[in-house]
C-alpha cells in the first residue's frame, strides 16, 4: 500500500492505495464519487473521463501515483440533480442521455473544451468529442447540448 494525497473537486484526501491503482478506482471505491463510470478499462470509450488540471483524461488508465499536486475534477463538481450546472442543464434540455452511462464522461470532456474555447463551432465540438463513445447513439443530441452552451456563452457577453 502507498500513501497518496489526491485533490478532488477542491478538497484534499489522504488515501492508502494499492501502488498501481488507476484514478477511477480511487474516485469510486475510496471517495464515493460514482459519476465517472467503468466502461472498457482500456481508455477507448471515455465513460471514465475526468479533468486533471485543465485536460480531460481517461481515469481508468491514469495512475494515482503521479497526481499529487494536481487538481482532479469529476462530474460532481459541475452541479447536482437539484442545481445542475449550465452544461448539465443543456444535456437535460436536449435530452442528451438515453441510458446515461457515458454522460458523466461526455460532460467532463465537453467542459474541458468550453473552458479553453467558450465558442467552439460544431466541427470543433465533433473533433474534441471523438474520443468518447455512446452505445445508445445519442451523439447528435450531445453535440446539440454542447452547441447550446457554446451559443449561450456568446450571448452572455
Amino acid at each position, binding site marked *: 500500500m502507498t500513501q497518496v494525497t489526491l485533490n478532488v473537486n477542491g478538497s484534499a484526501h489522504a488515501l492508502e492505495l494499492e501502488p498501481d491503482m488507476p484514478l477511477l478506482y480511487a474516485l469510486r471505491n475510496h471517495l464515493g464519487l460514482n459519476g465517472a463510470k467503468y466502461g472498457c478499462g482500456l481508455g477507448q470509450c471515455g465513460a471514465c473521463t475526468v479533468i486533471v488540471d485543465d485536460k480531460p*483524461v481517461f481515469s481508468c488508465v491514469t495512475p494515482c501515483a*503521479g497526481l499529487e499536486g494536481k487538481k482532479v475534477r469529476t462530474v460532481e463538481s459541475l452541479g447536482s440533480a437539484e442545481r445542475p450546472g449550465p452544461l448539465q442543464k443543456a444535456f437535460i434540455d436536449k435530452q442528451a442521455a438515453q441510458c446515461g452511462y457515458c454522460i458523466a464522461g461526455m460532460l467532463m470532456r465537453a467542459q474541458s473544451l468550453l473552458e479553453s474555447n467558450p465558442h467552439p463551432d460544431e466541427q470543433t465540438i465533433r473533433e474534441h468529442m471523438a474520443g468518447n463513445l455512446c452505445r445508445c447513439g445519442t451523439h447528435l443530441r450531445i453535440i446539440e447540448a454542447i452547441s447550446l452552451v457554446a451559443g449561450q456563452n456568446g450571448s452572455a457577453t
Partner: protein
Amino acid sequence: MKGNFLRSSPLWISAAALASIGAIGAAMLMWRPAIAPIERPRTFDAAQLQRGARVVEAGDCAVCHTRPGGQYMAGGLPLVTPFGTLYSTNITPDPQTGLGQWSLPAFERAMREGIARDGHFLYPAFPYVHYRRMSEDDIADAYAYLMSGPAVNSPAMQNHMNFPMNIRPLVSFWNLLFLHAKPLTPVAQQSEAWNRGRYLVEGPGHCAGCHSPLNLIGAEKSGESLAGGEVDGWEAPSLLGMARRTNPWSTEQLVHYLRAEVVDGHGTAAGPMRPVSLSLARLPVSDAEAIAEYLLSLQTRAAITEIQPGAGNVETLDQTSGALLFASACAGCHAPAAPMREIDGRPGLDRTSALQAPSARNFLKTVLEGVPAMPGVPGPVMPPFAASLDNVQLIALASYLRQQARPDQPWTELSSTIEAIRQETK
C-alpha cells in the same frame, strides 16, 4: 584627377557591364512566366480518372492538402519548418482559389519545377524534387483526377516564413543547388515489381522527403537519401538495411505495415506515417509489395554509421515503479493476457520497432500522443497519455519497457528528450 578618372573609366564600364549581366542573370533565374489561364476542363475519361485517383493516393497529396476537418484537397494544413510555418494550398478545381485555371502544362511545370501557374516559386515543402521523377502519363492522370473533383472556394492562408525565406524568388537559388533529379528509367536487371517499387518510393511516394537527413537550408543531404530523418518531432527511421537489423523486417511484415495494419514484431504505423499508410492501404496490394521489395533491397551505405547508443546519461533505473505504472496504465491492452493481444493478435511491446529503436523518441511520442482514431477507417486506437503521466513516470515506464526489450542497451538522455518533446508540442 581628370586623367585619373579617364584612365579608370574602362574599369568602371566593365564593372557596370558585369553588374548588369549579373542583374539580368539573377532576374532570369528568379523570374518565370505565367502560363495562360484556361477554362476548367469538364469532360474526362473514366479510366483516366481511376488511374489518376491511384496516382494521387500514391503521391499522398491529400495528406498535406486536406486539413483535419477540412474539405478534400482544399488545403490549409500548417507545415512547421525550421524556416517558419507554411500552409498547404487549395488544389481543388476552383478557378479563383484552386487549380481551376491551370492547364496541364502549368500543372506539369509545378510538379517538375515548383513554379505556380502565375509564375511564382513554390516552397520545396511541396516535394517537386521528387514529383519531377514521375512519368508524364502519371502526371496527366493526376491532373485529370484533381480537375474532376468538387471545386472548393478556399483562399490560401497567409504563410509565416522567417526572413529571408519569406522572399519566394530566393527559392530559385535553392532550386539551382538541389533540383537535379531526372525522371526514373527502369533498371533492366531488376524485376518489374522492384522497378515499380523504386518508382513509387523515389517518385510519387517521396519517402526521402521525411526519411532523409536535411542540411542547413532544408534540402535532403546528398548521398544520404533514405538514411533516416526527423519529421514533426518523430524519428523517420532509416530505410536502408532494413532486412539486416537486430530487429529485421520481412517482406510480409513490411507489406502489412505499409498498409496500416498491426504487425507482429514491429507494431503499427503511428505519427506522420499513419496517414501515409492509410493512403497506401487504398492502393492495390501489389503496390505495397513492390515498395517492400525495393526497400528491402537497399543496403546500408558504409559511410553512414548507425547511431551508437551507450554514450550519454542513463537515468537511474527504477524498475519497480515502471512495473507498477505499466500495470496501472498499459496492462489493460498490452499485458500478455490482455484481450487485445489474445483476440486481435497485437504484438508484445518489447518486440515493437519503437522499443527496439536506438532513440526513445518514437516510443515517447506514441505514449504522449497515442494513435488517434481515423474517422471511417477501422484500425488500432491508443489513447494519449500526455495529461495522464508526468515526466518522472514516463522515464520510469520507458526504462522499464526498454529493459524488457533491450536489456543490453538502456536508453540515454530520457529526461531531456521528454522535456524537448513537451516543449515542441506546447
